[in-house]
């Protein structure tokens, strides 16, 4: 008898006379605040409250220009695979967007799948590169305004229902999804909040209003 069958058997015996409880269904009242109806505003408020920074631009070109200026202040930069496409809008030289080991840079640039307003979260997927999202102390993230979802439920369902290119086996989610809701923080040392242990201590969301 395998451990698996042994455990499942014990569960079935335990539940034999237990009254089943039905699933209460989706809970719509998750929204904690009266929404202004503007997910972008709410995302910004939540993200900033958590210690993150938010900037917004009308076009990708403007956003990319700003990010290039931002990262130029730092020694080395790594850019996620998906973010590279965005960063490359119209402007030429690509030498500094080459793959750099994210463990050796000061700033990383990523593209988020989307964002969630009610929790102030960025939805990060692995195709962009997880190391680039986690190792650099400063993290810059593009997100399209159209992909800012009101609730976490909506955001995750959107992710689940989008068929990933290259996946022919019906797997709905990527290998790993990370929701990042601000800079890394800990209060383990004497209950005092510190940032940047161990993920990025500074996160800047760059909202692109239209593609």
């Amino acid at each position: 008898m395998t451990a698996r069958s042994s455990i499942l058997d014990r569960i079935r015996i335990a539940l034999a006379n237990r009254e089943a409880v039905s699933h209460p269904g989706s809970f719509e009242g998750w929204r904690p605040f009266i929404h202004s109806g503007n997910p972008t505003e709410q995302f910004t408020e939540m993200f900033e409250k958590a210690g993150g920074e938010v900037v917004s631009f009308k076009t990708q070109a403007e956003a990319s220009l700003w990010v290039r200026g931002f990262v130029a202040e730092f020694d080395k930069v790594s850019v996620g695979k998906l973010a590279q496409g965005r960063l490359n809008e119209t402007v030429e030289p690509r030498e500094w967007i080459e793959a750099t080991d994210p463990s050796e840079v000061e700033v990383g640039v990523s593209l988020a799948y989307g964002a969630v307003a009610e929790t102030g979260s960025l939805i990060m997927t692995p195709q962009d590169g997880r190391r680039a999202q986690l190792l650099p102390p400063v993290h810059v993230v593009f997100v399209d305004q159209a992909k800012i979802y009101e609730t976490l439920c909506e955001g995750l369902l959107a992710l689940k229902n989008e068929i990933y290119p290259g996946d022919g086996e019906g797997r709905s989610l990527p290998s790993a999804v990370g929701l990042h809701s601000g800079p890394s923080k800990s209060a383990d040392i004497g209950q005092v909040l510190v940032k940047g242990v161990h993920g990025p201590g500074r996160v800047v969301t760059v909202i692109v209003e239209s593609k």
Partner: protein
Amino acid sequence: MSSVNPQRYPKASAQALKDKPEVRNTVTNSTDLANKKRMAAYQQVESDTWKDWGRDVKSHALTHLDQYLEQAETQLLANGAKVHWAETAQDAQKLLENIVLDHDISSVVKAKSMLSEELGINEHLEKLEVLVRETDLGEYIIQILGDRPSHIVGPAMHLSLEDCQRLFHEKFGTPIDGSPEILAAAAREALREEFLAADMGISGGNFLVAETGTVALIENEGNIRLSTSLPRVHVALVGIEKIVPRLEDVSGFVQLTSRAATGQPIGNFFSLIQGPKRDDDIDGPEEVHVILVDNGRTRLLADDKAWESLRCVRCGACMNICPVYRQTGGHPYGWTYPGPIGAIIAPGMLGLEEAMPLPYASTLCGACVDECPVRIPITELLLYWREKAVEEGLTSAIESAGLKAYTKAAEQPGIFRAAGTMLRHIPLGAGGRALPILSGWVKERSAPKSSPKSFMQQWKDGIK
């Protein structure tokens, strides 16, 4: 976990109060802060509806546990993950050992996992001469100290800033009055190398989503994302009760749990792990193993009353509000899970005899019941285990005899009153040390003074 010893609670709690009085202050301050944050966070939402929903989803999942576990396994396998089942702690250790040997693992980075504590994972790996590094800052501090976690969310909660400053000064050479930022920077630098070099990452699991085959993990530091992304092998240890049916359910539970644990709308990093890296992923582990662990959970599930405690989302709210817990912190409870939740699951998972006297380490004040985000009837379950303890003869024979005699007297009012009269003539201060019940009282308090005349006597005499 090196030694499981809830029986030591009475002596250990008394000793802790005597030898380390500063722990009481530190824990009280920390839990006061946690309580304020949680209450503020729950005031922002319809907390009653949230908690009802949380209770019902978890009860539904538990009453269909076998189906959901099978579904989770099927999905995880389709995701490319490997699934193992462990009945006992030894099984889990062995499974992990096999993975370690199969993959030539010499170094491990660990994300905080109370289950791994419960299973004694670190000690076992160290026996195999694998380097194990805790990466959660609180767990890291505990590990350097050779201490044990005292709280399920803040393992180093019993340590003050000064304690940390001393430790870091010795270990890293930081200034003795180093600010938390300086200490944290030292830890970050030390751990960065270990993240990059580790062969394997070990995590727990806050939730296991059956629908999508997802191990969901909540954190604030990012060490869990790092531990589960950088090394080539990731092992997730997940208790079978962590099942949540659908992806959209976990979107609710992460918020329910985050608000209850730390007062945040959501933990800073929320990982949803389906399986190993895919062809179009740049990085990620080549292998993901999920070890589904029983270790006494099915025993709890079989109990018609106590199974409700399996709804627990490990938020720590109950121990934060518990007036008993905050006097000593978690160590005197002698097990991985202290406080109210520890007291009600220990009898099911360890056996009642082993778990004694934890169900009695409570005044039944009920504060925890108000705070539990999944509405576990904690005081009802404490009473339930106490009744079982009496039935199984696990309580003091003297106390049982005393209460039987008391009850007999209570059924005969004349005798009851005579006994009361006798009592008022014993100088309780002195005689108190002789009577078993009273000796406990007079240890720490002045003996109660009987009223000069009993009420019934005054009633008889006539009240104006």
